[in-house]
């Protein structure tokens, strides 16, 4: 297309004039504005407990994907569980920030062991960890188990071992824990049931 000097100036001035009028608010723009899309719409919702204190507030954990074979779930939001009778959907500042605990670079994600005499933590598998704990327990119990006290009364105590349970355990887990531990003769059972 051939544009003369004069036509070029005309096109420029028409463009400038038109856009100036539009900028002054004379151009009717469609009244469109959408809110941010609700990010949980099809996320996978998993019910759980806040791990921090003994109040054990209920939380809903939202992760990406629908648990199908090829989609890797990634937790991206955590909020209170309204059906939990303890917290009814509310969370304290620590609970409200649980997502950052899940994503924290300092979070322990696998068992580690520091051997006697060593100053380094070494990563081990869950099987190794459980076996190691069981062996230590067995050795300690065999060495220190008290079957009868000085008066000859059967007591079945294991006084050299302690167990720290979770505060977030429900009735059933608490019952089973108590059964197993008392069965072994453990006296020192505590929970992190405090803030």
């Amino acid at each position, binding site marked *: 297309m051939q544009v003369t000097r004069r036509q070029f100036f005309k096109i420029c001035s028409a463009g400038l*004039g038109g856009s100036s009028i539009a900028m002054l608010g004379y151009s*009717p723009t*469609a*009244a469109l*504005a959408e*809110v941010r899309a*609700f990010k949980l719409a099809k996320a996978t919702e998993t019910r759980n407990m806040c791990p921090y204190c003994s109040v054990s507030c209920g939380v809903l954990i939202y992760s990406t994907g629908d648990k199908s074979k090829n989609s890797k779930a990634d937790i991206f939001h*955590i*909020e209170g569980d309204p059906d939990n009778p303890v917290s009814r959907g509310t969370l304290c500042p620590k609970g409200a*920030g649980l997502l950052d605990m899940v994503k924290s670079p300092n979070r322990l994600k696998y068992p580690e062991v520091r051997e006697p005499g060593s100053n380094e933590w070494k990563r081990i598998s869950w099987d190794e960890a459980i076996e190691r704990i069981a062996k230590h327990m067995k050795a300690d119990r065999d060495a220190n188990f008290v079957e009868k006290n000085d008066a000859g009364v059967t007591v079945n105590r294991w006084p050299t071992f302690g167990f720290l349970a979770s505060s977030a355990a429900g009735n059933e887990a608490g019952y089973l824990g108590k059964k197993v531990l008392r069965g072994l003769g453990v006296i020192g059972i505590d929970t992190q049931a405090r803030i």
Partner: protein
Amino acid sequence: MALQSLDIARRSATTTPAPGARQTTEVAKLIDVSTCIGCKACQVACMEWNDLRDEVGNCVGVYDNPADLTDKTWTVMRFAEVEQGGRLEWLIRKDGCMHCADPGCLKACPAPGAIIQYANGIVDFHQENCIGCGYCVTGCPFNIPRISKEDSKAYKCSLCSDRVAVGQAPACVKTCPTGAIMFGSKEQMKEHADKRIRDLKSRGFANAGLYDPQGVGGTHVMYVLHHVDKPQLYSDLPKDPAISPLVSLWKGMAKPLASLALGAVALGSLFHYVMKGPNEVSKESEREAEKEESQ
């Protein structure tokens, strides 16, 4: 058919009227200052939901942390120690956008569609249309919007418009462990406030009342205060907030006058062109100019 989940009531720098046939319930958030313990769960829940993470701040000698609202902190607890009637009172106020019925930010905003008021009362910023001029900061009677240093866009509380649009309560409301923050229709919130105020009055707070300032047409975030007669006690909550007269001067007079002046200039130029014609150079003056150049 509406193309959005919430009906629009007003849109910044837009002259076309918004659709108004549908009836939408007005929503409100009620902050009961007297039951707030200042735990800041609302601050954390706000950041978590809105995908914001402000920088870790420093202790400035009081519990306020961060010390002020930022582009990434849309709500902040303000702690005030005041003496009232010989007693020390620790007044904690959750500060953030009040979602005015007559929003100064929206009135001042020159960018079309950067600030939206939905029919349910929420005032929302749309950063993609924001030009970063900061007029909303001038227009706000509560000093709420903050301009980001990274992208030069204005940010503030959206009252979790994305949650409200699907029938959920804002994140701060849901998390509040003491129930100091409530959410519902504005009517319900006023009823709830009445109950709280009666209770406070029976406990000796004769001046307890609801903060729903009429200077900005009422707000969609309201406070129950023990001393509604002295809101400035609560970290300078304004007693009679109103939109700055500069905004009405600019929007009410200056803008049409400027448009008129611009139109007059265009019209004048047209008349000048018709009457005087284009500027023509005579051959003599051209020769003279050539002579001067050659010298």
